[in-house]
Every structure is written in structure tokens, then in C-alpha cells.
């Protein structure tokens, strides 16, 4: 064997070693050893071979528009650039005119924004938008444009006066010539001061601005969501929407409030009368004047909900191509791609919530037979609005907006979850400290309410959130070389809460220590007091108010042992448990049923009612799980028993009446929930 052979053998051996070192072994991509192998370490983030996300995103926008539309994007790179690609390179949808807010890539709708002052720019934007919305082309925007419900000529005139208040009269005359806002022609002239002729004429390519005689129908507008975009809708169509909600019939007095809820604008009688005639000529409704008081009675002929025939707003989400969930590594793609998933979730959520609001109003006017169906739909859409966000969080664990949504939805339902998600925002972005404070408050309140369950743990969580806030704030001020940490409002507030939480933690820790060898203490106390019932009851009440629950429970046990037949003590004990330890309360009450140890304070009907209520609460708390179904079922049994027991009674006081109502309501709720399952 010569040296050359050795070299070859050595090279082969090492070649194998480095092959393994780069490509790794096995095919399991979630292995914790992945970071040991070069290929596996970087594969998930960089395998883009199935990354159609932005491509589909652009396509989804394109397919959601009516022919001949105007489409305005909010200016984010993903939206603007994918649409640019399809519009310019693939020449899709040549009938649509695209615009972005900044005019970097699409025609400059607002002139040269880099060289226009911010004050003037906002006026120019309002004027141009007003003009665009006034064409007879459908206009879509991809964000909730602010103040769209205010846009009108008089609003523009006011803004102009506000903006140019205090300028000298000579200059004012120049501005008046520049901004002629008295009629549509004036508006056109104003726009031409800013916009290139060619861009201006682009809008007129198909159809034109509405005629002067239609002027009274222009502005304001409201936004209706269709999938990923909002359609700018003239104010008058709110009447059609309101009629739809009201079951197809109504007049000004009855529709007024619903219209305001949909559009954020109050509609005057004059507007109403004007619009209804226009709508009738467009075929949306018929109306008859009431001979009696000359008011209009409207009847809906067709709803104004569908952009394309037969496709409602919710159907868009089935039409869209959203494939990323099926791809093995889509969660690891780059930050900008992940943003698109979050967009889907946020817009889908918004769509469901709009639908829920719509249905919640509708249910008031629906005939009795349809109500149940509507209620089920409301529940379904509410659930779905939460589901889409939570499902997306798995892909997008660092999206601030999604965490905010989950945090705010669970504010009352599940404070721990809510606090966790709100606090996560601060972890993602150290500058975004605001919600840490809220999270700390939520969890602190929650810990006060549930002192027996994870009391100390929750307090420590609150402290952790506050710590994170203070640390972030310190980093913030330090990194910017500026003082102001001490004066910062959030820091001041957090420090205050911190003091309270610290004290509570100290007390709680003392209590745990106290209860650790409380058997000795208990002996000591009991020896001091003896078996004096009144003194022991007073002590226990005192302990309860001092939140020393462990010790209180022990004293209760002693009291029960000493006075086994005392109904009052037992009643107090059950109440104590109900507030502090639901599980134990359930077991104790179950025991009462089994041993039939009923008494005046704990009569059979009361026990059953309590148990029904307790199980109901537990079910609500664990909603969505198998456990909750069991609790619902148990709860229903107890409530039914209770109702049967009460039925036998001859006289019913007001308290019992209330309890009956609660039982009936709960049972119907349970029926609904279980039937859905």
C-alpha cells in the first residue's frame, strides 16, 4: 500500500464524513440535531420551490374585482409589487387601473408627493379620492380609508379653509384659484394643477365622471369588504343594506339607526327621500307613500351585497388560492412572506366579524322560525373569526397584530391567555411596551379573583410582564441616549402596579410558608381559642378577608369536625368553596347528594341548582374541549332535576324565580351548543 492509496482512502473517508456533515442523516426535518448539518439547518427557510404565496396573493386581488375597476393599494411592498408584476409583465386585467399611495411604481395619483408639504398633501389626497370615487367605475381600496364617511364637497371646502387659515390675503387668493371646490368642474381644474394630463385622462378612459345633475348623489361613501379589498360604496346603498337587515321592509324612522351603524353617518330625511327615489330607479326597492302621514314605506327588491352574481362576501375566501398551509416548510419562509398569511387571517377575521354584526342586527327583525338559524350562524362566524387568527399564529408566531387580536378577544373569556398574547407583543418588539402593562393588569385582576388556582404563579407572571416592560423601556432610553425613563408614563404606571404586585407576592409567599407548617399553627390557634364556635367562625371570616384561604379551610374542617350537624357552618363552608375552590365544592356537594345530608341551608333543590351552575361555569371555562361537553351534560341533568323539584313546590319566592329563569336559559344554551356538536 503506497502513499497515494492512503491519500485516496483518506479522501474517500473524509468525503463521506463531510457529506454527512453537510447533508445530515435521516429525513426527519424537525429533528433537534438539524442545526448540526449545514443543509438541514438552512433548508426549511430557503426551500422556496413551493412558494407561490405572493404570486397567489396578487392573483387573488386580481380575481376579486369587477370589470373596469379602479384599484388602490395601501402601499405595502407585497401588495404593490405583486400587482405591478401582473399588471405590467403578465398584462393581466388590462381593464383595471392600479394606484399606490406613494406613486412610486404606478401613476402618480397625488402628484409629486416628495415635494408637496404634508399639510397640502392630505388635502390633495382628499380631493383626488373624492374625484375618483365620483366616477362611474367601481373603486376598491385595500385598507380602511379614514374619513371616507365624511368626504363631500363641503368637507373639502372646510379642510381647505382650515389648512390655509392665517395665510395672508394675497396668498389666499392664489390658493383659491388653485383649489376651486365649488363644483365638479372646479375640482377637475384643481386636480389638473397637480396631476399630469396623461394620468388624469387615464381615469376617463372608460366611462367618465358623473354628470352635474347626479352631483347630489355624490359623497359620502362607506366601505364594504369583499375578501381582501373594500369596495367604496355610495352612501345611498346603506338604505338597501339596512332594509336587508330589517327583513325587507322599513321606513326612515326605523332604518335610521341601522344606517348609522353600518356607515358611521347619520342620514337626514332629505337625503333619505332623495336616495330612495334614485334606488327605486336603479331597481333595488319599491316604495309607497303612506297616505296617512306621507312617510315612505320601502320594500326591498334585491339586496346590494353581491359584486358578482351569486357570490356573497364570504364566498371570496373559497374562491381564493391560499395553499401555504399544505407546504411542509411554509412556516419557515421569510418574514415578508409570513406577513401575507397574517394579512389573510386579519382580513378573513374582519369579514366574519362584519358578518356577525350584520346578523346580530338582523336577528332582531327575523321571524321566530329563522332566529335559531341566525343564532347558530352568529356563533359559527364568531368562532371562525377567532379560529382563523389562532390557526395563523402557528405560522406567524411573531406577528404583533395577530397576538393583539387573540389577546383582545380573550380579554374576558380567558384572561390568562389574553395576557400571554398581549405580553408576547413586547417580546417581539421591545419598543411596543404598551400591552405588557395591560397584560400585567389583566393577570393581576385575574389572580385576585381566583386566589386558590395558581395565585402565586399568576402574580409572578404579572411581575414578569412588568419586568419585561421596564427592561424594554430602559433599553429604549439607553439606546437612544436620552433621559426620560423616570418620567415615562408607562414606567410610572408600571412601577406603581409593580409595588402592589410585589406586596401581594410577599404576602402570598408568607401564606404559603404559613400554611406549610400550619398544622402547628392551627393547633396553636385552636388551643388558644378552644372549641368556641363563635370565635372560630369570626376567625375564619377574618382569615377569608385576609385571603389566607389554606388556613381558613383547615379551620373550617375543624369546625365541621366539632359541629357536624351545624347547617350554618356547612353552608358557609360550601359558599367559601364555591368562591375559592370549584373542584372541591363540586365534590363536597356531590357527597351531600350521595349521603342525602340535606339541611335547611342546603336543601336538595339548592344543591342541585348550585351543581348545575358550577358545571355550567366549568364548561364555559373549558369551551371547545371534550371536558366542556361532559360538564354541559352534567349541568343539564342537575338543572332539569332542579326544575323538577321546584315544580313540586307550591309557593315560589322571587329568588327562586330568578333561579328558574337562569336554569331554563342555561338549558336552552346547552341544547344549542350540544346540538351544534
Amino acid at each position, binding site marked *: 500500500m503506497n502513499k497515494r492509496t492512503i491519500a485516496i482512502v483518506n479522501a474517500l473517508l473524509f468525503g463521506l464524513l463531510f457529506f454527512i456533515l*453537510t447533508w445530515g442523516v435521516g429525513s426527519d426535518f424537525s429533528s433537534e440535531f438539524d442545526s448540526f448539518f449545514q443543509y438541514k*439547518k438552512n433548508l426549511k427557510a430557503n426551500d422556496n420551490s413551493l*412558494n407561490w404565496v405572493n404570486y397567489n396573493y396578487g392573483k387573488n386581488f386580481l380575481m376579486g374585482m369587477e370589470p373596469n375597476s379602479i384599484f388602490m393599494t395601501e402601499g405595502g411592498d407585497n401588495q404593490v*409589487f*405583486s400587482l405591478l408584476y401582473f399588471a405590467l*409583465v403578465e398584462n393581466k386585467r388590462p381593464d383595471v387601473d392600479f394606484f399606490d399611495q406613494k406613486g*412610486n411604481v404606478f401613476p402618480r395619483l397625488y402628484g409629486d408627493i416628495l415635494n408637496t408639504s404634508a399639510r397640502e398633501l392630505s388635502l390633495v389626497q382628499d380631493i383626488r379620492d373624492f374625484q375618483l370615487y365620483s366616477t362611474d367605475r367601481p373603486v376598491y381600496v385595500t385598507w380602511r380609508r379614514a374619513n371616507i364617511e365624511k368626504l363631500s364637497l363641503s368637507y373639502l371646502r372646510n379642510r381647505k379653509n382650515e389648512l390655509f387659515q392665517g395665510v395672508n390675503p394675497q396668498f389666499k387668493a392664489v390658493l383659491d384659484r388653485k383649489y376651486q371646490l365649488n363644483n365638479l368642474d372646479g375640482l377637475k381644474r384643481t386636480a389638473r394643477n397637480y396631476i399630469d394630463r396623461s394620468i388624469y385622462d387615464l381615469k376617463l378612459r372608460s366611462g367618465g365622471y358623473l354628470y352635474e345633475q347626479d352631483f347630489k348623489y355624490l359623497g359620502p361613501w362607506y366601505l364594504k369588504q369583499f375578501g381582501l379589498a373594500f369596495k367604496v360604496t355610495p352612501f345611498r346603498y346603506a338604505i338597501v343594506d339596512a332594509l336587508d337587515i330589517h327583513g325587507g321592509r322599513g321606513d326612515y324612522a326605523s332604518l335610521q339607526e341601522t344606517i348609522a351603524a353600518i356607515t358611521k353617518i347619520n342620514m337626514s330625511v332629505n337625503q333619505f327621500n332623495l336616495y330612495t327615489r334614485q334606488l327605486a330607479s336603479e331597481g333595488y326597492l319599491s316604495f309607497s307613500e303612506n297616505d296617512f302621514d306621507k312617510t315612505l314605506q320601502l320594500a326591498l327588491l334585491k339586496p346590494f351585497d353581491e359584486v358578482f352574481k351569486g357570490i356573497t362576501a364570504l364566498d371570496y375566501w373559497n374562491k381564493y388560492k391560499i395553499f401555504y398551509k399544505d407546504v411542509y416548510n411554509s412556516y419557515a419562509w421569510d418574514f*415578508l412572506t409570513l406577513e401575507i398569511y397574517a394579512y389573510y387571517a386579519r382580513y378573513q377575521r374582519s369579514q366574519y366579524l362584519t358578518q356577525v354584526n350584520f346578523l346580530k342586527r338582523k336577528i332582531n327583525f327575523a321571524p321566530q322560525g329563522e332566529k335559531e338559524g341566525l343564532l347558530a350562524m352568529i356563533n359559527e362566524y364568531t368562532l371562525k373569526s377567532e379560529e382563523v387568527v389562532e390557526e395563523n399564529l402557528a405560522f406567524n408566531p411573531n406577528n404583533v397584530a395577530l397576538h393583539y387580536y387573540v389577546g383582545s378577544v380573550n380579554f374576558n373569556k380567558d384572561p390568562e391567555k389574553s395576557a400571554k398574547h398581549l405580553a408576547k407583543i413586547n417580546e417581539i418588539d421591545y419598543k411596543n411596551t404598551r400591552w405588557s402593562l395591560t397584560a400585567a393588569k389583566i393577570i393581576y385582576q385575574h389572580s385576585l379573583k381566583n386566589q386558590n388556582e395558581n395565585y402565586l404563579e399568576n402574580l409572578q407572571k404579572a411581575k414578569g410582564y412588568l419586568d419585561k416592560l421596564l427592561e424594554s423601556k430602559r433599553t429604549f432610553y439607553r439606546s437612544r441616549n436620552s433621559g426620560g425613563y423616570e418620567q415615562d408614563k408607562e414606567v410610572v404606571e408600571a412601577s406603581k402596579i409593580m409595588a402592589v404586585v410585589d406586596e401581594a407576592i410577599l404576602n402570598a409567599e408568607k401564606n404559603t410558608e404559613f400554611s406549610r407548617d400550619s398544622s402547628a399553627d392551627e393547633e396553636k390557634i385552636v388551643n388558644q381559642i378552644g372549641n368556641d364556635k363563635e370565635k372560630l367562625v369570626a376567625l375564619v371570616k377574618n382569615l377569608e378577608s385576609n385571603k389566607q384561604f389554606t388556613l381558613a379551610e383547615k379551620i373550617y374542617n375543624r369546625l365541621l369536625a366539632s359541629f357536624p350537624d351545624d347547617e350554618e357552618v356547612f353552608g358557609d363552608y360550601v359558599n367559601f368553596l364555591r368562591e375559592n375552590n370549584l373542584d372541591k365544592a363540586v365534590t363536597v356537594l356531590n357527597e351531600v347528594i350521595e349521603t342525602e345530608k340535606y339541611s335547611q341551608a342546603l336543601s336538595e333543590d339548592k344543591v342541585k341548582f348550585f351543581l348545575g351552575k358550577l358545571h355550567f361555569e366549568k364548561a364555559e371555562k373549558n369551551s371547545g374541549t371534550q371536558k366542556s361537553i361532559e360538564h354541559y351534560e352534567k349541568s343539564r341533568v342537575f338543572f332539569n332535576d332542579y326544575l323538577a323539584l321546584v315544580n313540586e313546590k307550591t309557593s315560589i319566592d322571587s329568588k327562586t324565580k330568578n333561579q328558574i329563569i337562569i336554569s331554563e336559559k342555561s338549558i336552552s344554551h346547552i341544547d344549542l351548543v350540544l346540538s351544534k356538536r
Partner: protein
Amino acid sequence: MAFKSEDFQKKWMKDYRSYDLVFQDKLIAAFVFIAAFVFYALHLTPGVSAGDNGELTSAVYYLGVAHAPGYPIHTLFAKIFTFIPWGNVAWRVNLFSAFCGALTVYFAILVYFKIMFSLHSNKLYVYLSAVVGAIAFAMSKTLWSQSVTTEVYTISALFHPLMFYVLLKWQDKVMQTQRKDLYLGEKYLLAFAFLLGIGLGGHQTIIITQMYTLVFLSVFILFFQVLNRKNFKAYLRTHQGHFAFVLFLIFLAWAFYFYYIVRYESNLFVNQFSNLKPGVTVFVICYLLLLAYYLYYRLLAQKSIAYNQLFHRLSLLAIKFFGMIFLGFAIYFYIFIRAHGNPPLNWGGVNELDTWWGKLAKFFTMINRKQFPVNPLPISFYNVLTQLNLLITKVHYSQFSTPFFLIAALGGYELFRRCRLWLVLLVFSFLVYNFALTLYIKFDFNDQDLFFIEVFYIYSYFLISIFIPLGVYQMLSLSHFLLSKILLKQKDEQAVSSTTSGTSSSTSLSHQEGASNPS
């Protein structure tokens, strides 16, 4: 005692000997290029991806002007790929990124070959270790991620190893050539300058990449061309004033450029271009003076050029150097030319104003990226420390798998023993680049900022990757030594021990052995 280059080389570049790549090396590099290209193509984004992709693709398709600073080389060269007859246009332009990424790997492996063959002789082992290094670099997180989608970073990245390679060739020539006149390797330096200029048409961070170059150049010129001459003081005697004059004009020109054009708070259009005019005027006058100086010696007083006077040679070289940078940078005239063709995508609208000052103002707004407001952190000890910490623990650490960092450390040790100067220069380059870029970008501490800045540090990852083949080779030597010991037993033991005497056992494949057994 007189300074001797040989002593210096013995101490600081002990095992170094010059090496020119042969056809076989380039062939292997070409195979690696093809493999990398196929690898990137397999993971390529099939359509338009998130980020700038759609915009850059549209600019490429219409030969338009992309977002500031315009990225003319990307637009021009990627256009070729749009003529591929299949696939959607976005995919074709994505493929261009893969091509540039593979080209980056190609130039990187040339650098590895050059360094490895300068220190070692066992061809098989050099090829194997260089290929392992190339694979590690090709699969480094950021280069890979940029090679599978349309972005401007791969075409910018390929200039790093390419310029590094040119610099290595220059160093070889400067070390070897000994003439009566000073030899400054101008041919290579001017090629380097041209590449730098044209590279600015990609991403402009390349300018920071080259900050260490001045030190690199000074070291080799000083130790191998100047100090080693017997009467070296005579080579420094005259023309100091000329050099100071040239440096002053260069400094003045750039001071005016930065003070009046780059730094402006408001925009360049106010007060009849009151910022733009003095900035441009002084800049142009300075360079016209420099040009006049150069032309005087080139055309009228060629005989009075002092070829053996360092300062005179440097004065003339500096002017030529900047001339070549400008020549490369002239690729930015693309923006002027194409903007006036009114393509559908015309970012910055350079053609929108009719006056030349107006056009210039728009042009400078474009190339200085004034449109994108930045809100950076102030520079402070705490901030820079935190930023560097994040750079190491999050950005750099994510590039390679853990074993490769260990291997790179081994390579560093190898370089320490064999060619200390390179180690110093590489580490210096690494530190200067990271510090300078960090001070320039001033990024914030959150993950989002880290995601956006990791692409600027590709050069830094490349520098780390240089150490990987060195470490691999070291491991190969060690195992070779052990294998020989086991398999050849007594007979060859003597031979082995004779080659390793005086050095540690793992250096059994150093030059002495290689020289005696050329493969």
C-alpha cells in the same frame, strides 16, 4: 540592520509560495458552479415572491428603473434571462439570482484554491477541502436565500470573492516582481477599481467591503517593494507635495459631495438647487484638476515621471484608480438614459424635470436613496456592543452549522502557523467590515431589523468560509498521518517522522513533503 523581504516573508508568511490557477482548477470550479446553479434552481421560487421581487422583475422586463438607487447592473444583466423561452417571467428573473449565486460560489472556490495551493501541495486534499468550503458557503443561510428569489444581493455578492481574487493575484505579482523601478501591479489594481465601480451598480455596501483594502495594499507595497530596497529612503525622497496635493483634491471633492449632496436635510430642489450647485461644481473642478495633473505627465512630461519615486507613482495611480472607479460607476448613466425612454416602471422619475440641475437633483436623490427615510439608533458604546452581540449570536451564527464554525477555527489556527499575515489581514478585514457596516447601518435590536440587515453581511460570511477549507485540510492531514501510521507501519514511520520533525504531528503534508512527492 537592513530590512529583508525574505525575513519578513519567513516570519509572517512562512509556508507561502505563489501559485497560479491551472486549467484543472478552473474545471473543478466550473463543476462546482454547475452544481450550485442546479442546487439553487431546485429550490427556486416558482413565481413572484414577497418583497421587491415583483418590482425588480418589472424593471428588468421593461429595462426600466428599479427602486433607489436603481440597481442598473441587475436590471441590465437579468434582462438576458427574460429571453428564456419557458416558465413565467418572474421565474426566469429568479433564475438569474441563482446564476449569480452560483457565480459567487465559483469565484469563492477560486479564492479557496489560490489560498490553499499557496500553502499546500496535495492536490486531492486541496480539491476536497475547497469543495467542502464551497458547499458550506453555497448553503450558508443568506447566500442561499438570496439565490432562490429575485433580489439585488447575489449579483452584488459575486463581486466580493472576485475582487478578493484579483487582490490575491496582485499580491503575488507584487511579492515576486523585483525591478529597478517600483512595481505597483497597476494592471490588477485598475481592474480592481473598475470592478469596484461597476459593483456599486449593485448594492452600495460594497464600498465598505473595500475599506480594509488600503491597509492590504500598503502592507505589501511597503514590505515587498519599498523597505526591501537597500537605499529605500531614496525612493521616498521627492514628490511628497504632489501626493499631498492629489490627496487633498480627492478629499475636498468628496467632502463637498458628502456635505452638500449626501447630507442635505431637506431636498435638493429648494432655493434653486443651492445645495446641489456648489457640491457638484467643486467635485467636478477637483477631478478636472486631477485629470489635468495626470494628463500633463502622461502627454506632455512623460519623461519627467519619476518611476522610482513612490509618492509620484502613487499620485498618478490614485488618479487612475478613481478614473477606473468612475468608469465602472458610469453604469449608473443607465438611469438617465432609460428614464428618458419613459419605461412603464420609472422609479424616481429622473426625466420629469426639464433642467439639467433638476435631473441631477433627481439623480442624486435616487443614488443616495434619499427617498427612504431612516430612523437609526445613535452611535454609542452600548448600542454598538448590543448590535455586535446580535450580529454574532443571531446573524452570523445562523449562517453555518456548528461543526463548520469549529472547523473554521481550526483553519484559523492553521493560518496562524503557516501564513500569519493573511490571518491578520483576514481578521482585520472581518472586524473592520463588521464594525464599519454596523456603524453605518445603525440597526435596531429587533428581529425584523436583523432580517433586513443580514443580506448586507454576505462578505463577512464569505470571509468566515475562507477558513473552512483550511480547517478541513488540517483534519485531512491529521487523519492521513494516522492512517499512514496504521497501514504503513514501521517501514514508513521513519519517513513520516523525518517530515514532521520540528513541527507538530499534524503537519505531515506541508510543502517539504509535497515538494518531494509532487502529485
